């Protein structure tokens, strides 16, 4: 079902984890739909993404696109990172099955959400960046175990 690259990034995801006091954190997706992605960015004073980490709740494609997206933005400038589209992520993974294309959108959105958070914290505006819609807390219920 998945390409070798997808399987590689799924089984050995790069950059899993958290960044304490991150410059920006973005969480997108909805547990109801089965996918949530969170991206942490560490951005230096020159606007370069020094470090990036992610956490993902989702299918193989969701994990692999998160991993690939972090690789693609690491070391890039904020403006370069903005250009990392879901299409670029998919291409870097040698493609995804049609039913999994929506998972790759999540990675793009998560980066944008983290950049938005960074901009808000810094009190700056990033050209071409729109406020992300996040509905992560919708439908989050707990049941007894």
């Amino acid at each position, binding site marked *: 079902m998945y390409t070798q690259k997808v399987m590689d990034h799924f089984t050995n995801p790069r950059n899993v984890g958290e960044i304490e006091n991150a410059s920006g954190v973005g969480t997108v997706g909805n547990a109801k739909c089965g996918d949530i992605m969170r991206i942490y960015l560490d951005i230096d004073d020159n606007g370069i993404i020094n470090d990036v980490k992610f956490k993902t709740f989702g299918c193989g494609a969701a994990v692999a696109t998160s991993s690939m997206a972090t690789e693609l933005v690491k070391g890039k400038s904020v403006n370069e990172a903005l250009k990392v589209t879901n299409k670029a992520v998919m291409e870097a993974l040698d493609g995804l099955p049609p039913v999994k294309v929506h998972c790759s959108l999540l990675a793009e959105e998560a980066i944008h959400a983290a950049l938005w958070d960074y901009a808000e914290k810094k009190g700056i505006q990033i050209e071409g960046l729109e406020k992300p819609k996040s509905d992560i807390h919708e*439908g989050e*219920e707990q049941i007894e175990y």
Partner: protein
Amino acid sequence: MENKIYLDNAATTKTRPEVVEAMLPYFTELYGNPSSVYEFANQNKKAVDEARKIIANALGADISEIYFTAGGSESDNWALKAAVDAYADKGNHIITSKIEHHAILHTCEYLEKHGVEVTYVDVDENGIIKLDQLEKAIRPTTILISVMFANNEIGTIQPIKEIGEIAKKHKIPFHTDAVQAFGHLDINVNDLGIDMLSASAHKLNGPKGIGFLYIRKGIKIRSLIHGGGQERQRRAGTENVPGIVGFGKAVELAMATMKERTEKEIKLRNLLMKRVLEEVPFVRVNGDKVKRLPNNVNFSFQFIEGESLLIMLDMNRICASSGSACTSGSLDPSHVLLAIGLPHEIAHGSLRLTLSEENTEEEINYTVDKIKEIVDKLRKMSPLYEDFIKKR
């Protein structure tokens, strides 16, 4: 593939070698068409009759009440559509449950588009149909009650005898989708008051592409597939003789080995459940603890997603299944898990393991070890788990 651990026997089973052996002569030697008049074809006719007899006996039915089909889906479609057609003068209302297989649910949707009214009765948190709600749903126009014998995802066994009694009391035909139950549980159509029953050979170590619909004498019936006069004019199409013979053999073996086989499955299943519940935190077992198919376990692991779990199990040569939406490419997770009241995100983390007597304790222990590792790994990368830990 070598050395796999097959834990997906609810999806399909291995055809037993004895079954294949029984089928083989009917491909290249006794290949005649049972409808032909000559002696050569007579041997096929006899073989088909013999299989029909084995199956009828297994259900306590008469041979004239067994109609071969191409599988469980065709049987389910047939039962519902035929009832709607045959009982149109009485009404247009069907009662079923919320946790039926898609072969029933999607047929109901189709029928709804064509003027049929359908009530989908709720189940409780263990997946058992609410009998009071079922009985209250009955109208003067109700022409069929269709409730599955045992659920394919969570393994819950329904109170079939009670449903049969309600149906009988109100003189409504009662159909049951027994695709997961036939050959695995004792079923007597008379004791249980079943009027129609669907089954599929490949769920009991028989071949794929062959099933049957049991139709009690006296129940009005219409054809789904029109044409030649096969199956007493009720189901057209040249008989799948090797398939029918294989089905007969599979039923014969399933009935003969049922007790011993299910005991073994229950033992392994319990080991699997016990270890997972004890060794993995934040997990629950879905479905009824007691009224449950012998070989079925269904877990929900909080904070993780089913497809990822399946793929990682696969990389460890373990074949399993999930009710996650991501596996099926749909937006919602399993309708069965939602119907028993699981929140979406927990339904997403479900894992179904369905055993066979061929599984070993070693395989089960290996599987539990791997589940532990994988669940741990996936939770480490789960934002939901992170939030949960931080909140504590």
